[in-house]
């Protein structure tokens, strides 16, 4: 889905998520992959960490490491969980690979008191430049697969995602964009600048509706 980081080095978006999550809380990581974020949260924040992952081999590796992970899929399996089952429902670099991002987002907001969503920004200048100058689907460090092999079905820009939050009745509590070297972009920058310079974004959301 996305290029993996160097072994042992926590991803910068993971570190930011760990910073957002409160100590001892209940967390569901949807699309938890090899369990790196769950492990980070368990180690540094002593959270009750659960995961959902679609790839069988990754699930088995997670469970063998002692993480509570089930084989399942964001589009199908979130419906089982009761409202407010978790303090945080996290969707880390996965929303672009779901079939129905809006529904998934709403499920996250329902089962988590807060939802944390990170995604690759398709509005990043390198992506725009590649499309503009080569006339072909961009392949970057962040989006390494050719269009015909990519699991990413619903790529979006930061502005697109902000629009989705409005439509899905989600309140944006915090939004952070990172540049290619993993530095947070200044909050003084206008959204348009984030949308050009941000390679990845992390949004923390709560639901606007009651209950």
């Amino acid at each position, binding site marked *: 889905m996305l290029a993996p980081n160097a072994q042992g080095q926590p991803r910068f978006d993971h570190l930011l998520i760990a910073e957002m999550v409160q100590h001892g809380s209940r967390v569901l990581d949807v699309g938890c992959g090899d369990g790196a974020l769950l492990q980070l949260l368990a180690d540094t924040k002593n959270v009750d960490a659960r995961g959902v992952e679609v790839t069988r081999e990754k699930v088995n590796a997670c*469970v*063998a490491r002692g993480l509570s992970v*089930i084989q399942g899929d964001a589009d199908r399996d979130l419906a089982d969980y009761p409202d407010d089952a*978790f303090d945080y429902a996290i969707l880390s670099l996965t929303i672009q690979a779901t079939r129905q991002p809006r529904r998934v987002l709403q499920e996250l907001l329902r089962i988590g008191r807060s939802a944390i969503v990170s995604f690759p920004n398709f509005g990043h200048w390198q992506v725009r430049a590649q499309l503009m100058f080569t006339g072909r689907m961009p392949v970057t460090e962040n989006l390494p697969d050719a269009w015909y092999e990519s699991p990413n079905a619903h790529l979006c820009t930061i502005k697109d995602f902000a629009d989705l939050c409005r439509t899905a009745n989600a309140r944006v509590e915090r939004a952070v964009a990172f540049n290619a070297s993993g530095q947070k972009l200044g909050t003084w920058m206008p959204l348009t600048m984030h949308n050009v310079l941000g390679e990845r974004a992390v949004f923390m959301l709560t639901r606007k509706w009651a209950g």
Partner: protein
Amino acid sequence: MNTANPRDFKAATDTRVLEAINPSSEYFDIPEHEPLRLDGNQLLGPVRVAYQTYGTLNAAKSNAILICHALTGDQYVASPHPLTKKPGWWEVMVGPGKPIDTNRFFIICTNILGGCMGSTGPASINPKTGKHWGLDFPVFTIGDMVKAQVRLIDHLGIDQLFAVVGGSMGGMQVLEWAARYKDRVFAAVPIATAAWHSSQNIAFHEVGRQAVMADPEWAGGRYLELGKVPRNGLAVARMAAHITYLSEEALHRKFGRNLQEISAKSFSFNADFQVESYLRYQGSTFVDRFDANSYLFITRAMDYFDLAAEYGDVLANAFKGTKTRFCVVSFTSDWLYPTRESREIVHALNAVAANVSFVEIESDKGHDAFLLDEPELFATVRGFLNAAAERRGLKR
């Protein structure tokens, strides 16, 4: 089909019946004045619970793992079977340094209520008549098997089991424990199992039972009194059941269409094919270690199992408020307890936001995979138990 010398066979039966009444293993007798109330509403007592233990119970009594056996299993999970002398049925999983590590945990395995390896069952003597119970034995359920285990765990002074682990019918007992005795199960590992017995599974069991009952030697269930054994009927039941434990791929890989010790078809009904010979062998060795009436009663208990029905047809209600950590395991080629049925358990657990891991293991060995050398299964169980032990504060 019976090629054994009748005298050997008589001796084998006698040893088997002796083992059913006086087990080689340890046992605990539930006294007559504290009988079990069975789900069919009868009172049963006294009840003998035969069991084996491995490893050492720690001072806090917090490291006990109960292993629940499947339909034809017994308490000899990691030590030789007293009749067949074969190694324990789950020695790949249980032992020193194994995923269920006897150096670290105290392992308890009981022969289930209704079994024939020393726990009270249809082959035992009915104290009221002085004869074998036979069909007078009350029909019991998976829940009743667990009630008998609970009495043993009480007797051993253990408040909370660190884990309850089992495959197939053992997994049903695990689910029953987790639903009925929530505070007494820290971690639960139901493997290759389901929360209810499917119509197809009931159908296969009925074929087995009818095979036993169609054998004239069964004698209306009174064969032990009459010195008979429904060998052929029970062997056919076992043969049919054995097919359901495998997969088409596993059978093909193992036997293909290979002929047995002959170069051409015999144009007879001899066991020309290796697969026939294999099944006949499975059938005939089974009757030397298992009681036909036990087989009838235990398959019935499995057929009656429906955990959701006990909780208003909503499986999730069975697990409401659970703090148990679950690890649900299924196998890709298991068509007797398919992954779909494990997933139903997982969905129910998710609906109550329980702590659950769920692993589907790729294997072509069918339902039997849970008993075999499956490294991914071992890694899963080891990893899950280690993490749970850490949570429970157990030392390495």
